[in-house]
């Protein structure tokens, strides 16, 4: 509102802040997933029909139209393969917290058959990030794992994982992740 505080100029603009306050009601499946993330476990559901593992769990297998629940819960690893990525250049709009370029990636977790999105990659120059690169999760300390980081509605993780760093393993062969490239 700084442009409106000058005292002798003609008023030509007004600021109007529109706020939409969301209270996300997560499903029991995602709530359980978020709780497990805060415990340091990444879990998914393994379809009893086709055997695919969905992380985060959906509560059903979309291919088989089968309901899944905690009986089908499996834990997957906190290591993963980068299936695709982008280097984000943050535009300085109001509320933007990022200042410098950063990398977001889609990851195929070891033990999962579905990829997760929006995962931050750190610890490597941006021009060295590549498809097939192996990464490991860098977990937040337990008191940093807030409920506010949850509610990703099935397309990410939670604040429990801060970011991912190269694990040092050799790159995964393309056949292992090519079905998951977005």
């Amino acid at each position: 509102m700084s442009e409106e505080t000058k005292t002798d100029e003609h008023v030509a603009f007004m600021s109007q802040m529109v706020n939409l306050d969301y209270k996300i009601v997560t499903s029991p499946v995602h709530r359980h997933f978020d709780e497990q993330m805060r415990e340091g476990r990444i879990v998914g559901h393994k379809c009893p029909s086709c055997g695919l593992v969905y992380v985060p769990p959906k509560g059903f297998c979309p291919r088989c139209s089968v309901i899944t629940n905690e009986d089908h819960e499996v834990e997957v690893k906190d290591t993963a393969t980068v299936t695709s990525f982008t280097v984000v250049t943050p535009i300085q709009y109001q509320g933007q917290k990022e200042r410098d370029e950063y990398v977001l990636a889609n990851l195929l977790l070891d033990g999962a058959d579905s990829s997760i999105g929006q995962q931050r990659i750190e610890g490597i120059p941006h021009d060295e990030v590549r498809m097939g690169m192996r990464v490991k999760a860098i977990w937040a300390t337990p008191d940093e794992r807030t409920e506010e980081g949850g509610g990703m509605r099935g397309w990410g993780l939670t604040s429990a994982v801060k970011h991912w760093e190269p694990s040092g393993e050799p790159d995964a062969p393309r056949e292992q992740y090519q079905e998951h490239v977005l």
Partner: protein
Amino acid sequence: MAAGPSWTLEFPYRRSLGPVVGEFFTGLRDGKVLGSRTKGGKVLVPPLEYDPETGEAVQDGFVEVAETGVVHNWAWVNEPLRKHPLDRPFAWALVRLDGADSSLLHAVDAPRDKVETGMRVKIRWREERKGHITDIECFEAV
């Protein structure tokens, strides 16, 4: 339903005001209320560019009206919302300022049993004004 995470989506709009509302808001910032005068001689507060009765452009220039007026109509708000101008029960009112022929919608800060049609009110100005309708903090009983 269990409570889940929350977040706020914000749209910080910056709206251009035009020659009439811009002048009106400039006046509010300077502590005066301006109206426009129709060709028929009626004073419109807040000012409009056109006479709502005839569609004709109003006369050039603005006229200043008083900061006192009369409540013409009102509605009581028992539980103010977060963005309402007052954080206690208040009345939304159409106030016809002395010297004006139309009414301005604003809040009246008065007890429920004091608010009535015909009530005399005056502007309570905000101390730090910036050229916005909220430069009028509210109306209060004279």
